[in-house]
């Protein structure tokens, strides 16, 4: 789950990391009131779950409430890489001496958190990585040790942070790691991490991603979820604990396991079709969950046929068949369904389907045959 800047900064502030004083605003009037409240020069920033808002005109520095209201008016509704701006952060402007970059990533290749620090922050850090790789310090933290003082010392040394600044910067790096570890983060990125003119440091931005699997123990983060920013079908899928992704074609895909679903998407494309979406029911799905998943896949109007591809291990074929048949009884299913059922209790599942003999259902023996049939049926409708 990606957090908005102001939400990430709320976590930072709780962990004792300095951030500029600010207010969230959903309207231009609220932005004006926020600027009045804060006084002086303020920054008005679009809160969207994507990068590049600066280049897109989503950040403005202004003096006083009137200009803040005007800036808010311009930024609200702005489309930034497909994300509509619906909220703003109005912050007191600070006196910046230097812009650094610091991030902590969950590096799955190394199976360790990766710290990155450069004094060339603020700008495009990917370009720094390309053009000045020696200026971007990288350091892994062994999770069996956790973050220690020496990690910060080494990282600052590698990044050539002036010795006189290290004492002030070190506790911030430690506290940001604390957010990463304590908040089940997959990413904590601060760009820029600014040195102020009084030689203290402050997090001027916050990109924080929290592990969805850990949200049960981060209830305050879960409560931050921006429902307006989510697709309603994706929202329904998440509530049912299903992985759902929307695409552009006309074949709906339902399967168990990310690998098989991905493979099904590949095969649909390879036999000349176009997937409309895909939904992974995961392992050990119940009949009820199967029915919910089918409902979500079919709620997309573009779906002209559905490919049901199940190779069960922990998922049982009889449960899948029951879920499918239950769904057909409760709702009017508007698209043909191609079923391929293999693995645990597949014979029982196929027997149930054969017994029900529903006209909407075509059973195929192989994945390839099922894909071909689903694509053909979608084509017939269109």
């Amino acid at each position, binding site marked *: 789950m990606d957090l908005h800047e102001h939400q990430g900064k709320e976590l930072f502030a709780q962990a004792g990391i300095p951030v500029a004083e600010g207010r969230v605003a959903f309207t231009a009037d609220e932005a004006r009131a926020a600027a009045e409240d804060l006084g002086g020069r303020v920054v008005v920033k679009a809160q969207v779950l994507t990068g590049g808002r600066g280049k897109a005109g989503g950040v403005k520095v202004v003096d006083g409430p009137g200009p803040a209201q005007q800036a808010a008016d311009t930024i609200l509704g702005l489309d930034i890489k497909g994300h509509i701006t619906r909220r703003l952060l109005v912050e007191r402007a600070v006196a910046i001496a230097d812009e650094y970059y610091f991030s902590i990533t969950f590096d799955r290749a190394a199976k360790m958190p990766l710290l990155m620090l450069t004094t060339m922050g603020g700008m495009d850090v990917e370009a720094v990585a390309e053009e000045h790789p020696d200026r971007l310090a990288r350091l892994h933290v062994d999770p069996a040790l956790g973050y220690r003082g020496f990690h910060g010392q080494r990282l600052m040394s590698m990044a050539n942070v002036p010795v006189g600044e290290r004492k002030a910067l070190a506790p911030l790096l430690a506290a940001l790691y604390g957010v990463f570890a304590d908040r089940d983060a997959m990413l904590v990125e601060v760009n820029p991490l600014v040195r102020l003119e009084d030689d203290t440091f402050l997090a001027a931005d916050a990109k924080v991603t929290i*592990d969805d699997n850990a949200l049960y123990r981060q209830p305050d983060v879960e409560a931050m979820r921006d429902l307006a920013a989510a697709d309603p079908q994706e929202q329904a899928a998440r509530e049912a604990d299903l992985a759902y992704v929307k695409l552009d074609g006309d074949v709906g895909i339902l399967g168990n396991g990310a690998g098989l679903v991905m493979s099904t998407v590949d095969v649909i494309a390879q036999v000349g079709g176009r997937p409309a979406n895909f939904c992974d029911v995961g392992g050990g799905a119940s009949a009820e969950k199967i029915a919910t998943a089918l409902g979500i896949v079919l709620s997309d109007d573009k779906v002209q046929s559905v490919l049901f591809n199940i190779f069960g291990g922990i998922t049982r074929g009889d449960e899948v068949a029951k879920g499918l048949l239950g769904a057909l009884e409760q709702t009017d299913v508007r698209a043909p369904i191609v079923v391929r059922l293999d693995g645990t209790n597949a014979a029982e599942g196929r027997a149930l389907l054969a017994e029900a003999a529903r006209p909407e259902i075509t059973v195929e023996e192989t994945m390839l045959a099922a894909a071909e049939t689903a694509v053909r049926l979608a084509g017939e409708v269109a």
Partner: protein
Amino acid sequence: MAVIATADTRLVVQGITGREGAFHALRNRAYGTQVVAGVTPGKAGEDVEGIPVFDAVADAVDRAGANTSLVVVPPRFAAEAILEAADAGVEQIVCITEGIPAHDMLEVYHYVRPRGIRLLGPNCPGALSPGIANIGIVPAEVFSPGPVGLVSRSGTLTYQIGGELAAAGLGNSTIIGIGGDPVVGTSFIDVLDLFEADPETEFIVMVGEIGGTDEEKAAEVIAERITKPVVAYIAGFEAPPGKTMGHAGAIISGSSGTAAGKQAALEAKGVPVGTNPTEAARLVVERLGR
């Protein structure tokens, strides 16, 4: 002899009194696996159709001689279950559970790895050596004994490929699902080394997918020290680009992680890559000349 799941495997099922735990414990036993114990705290003295239940894994080790654990407990408790098994002295742990918090698995990985404890998973189907033992949830009826060692990041894709090979008349030495989570205990490289040393395995099929760099690293190792022929299949050529994770994700992963990138890395080291399960099975059949 096969690997991981062998005739010497003595399995304890953690979470045996749960619905899934009982189902798979009994199914594995019915297959011929030595399922010697189960664990559910507070239920010591009970049994699941004759399999004794203990309060703790250490009891299953001490009193029933368990040497391998199958973890079938909910995600909130799974990391601790793995650590309990590691602390109790089992040699191998297979964790089926999906949805374990990533930070929990960081801790688990860096505990078991330096101590030489094999962890398969989490979010994996376990290991099956057809005709010998099944420690996990692989639907064994699809597979028969044979010369192909199969290793995969995806559970259901493992079954799919195994099924395609079976349809072509090819059996398996051992089928191993290493799991699809960001942090899993056993890598492709670990399994490639096991298959290389296993006399029953003549041919290796590796099933990868987008994300991470495990396939790219495996390609290097195959070129370096794997003498047995390897065929790969990669899933996710048509997958939509994932959401970006700030700048940091792009910096650390670079261009690696895509299906096409993995295919190129493998082919550069002489490993043929199928782009769907049927094609991968066909490549195996061609190479084995059967």
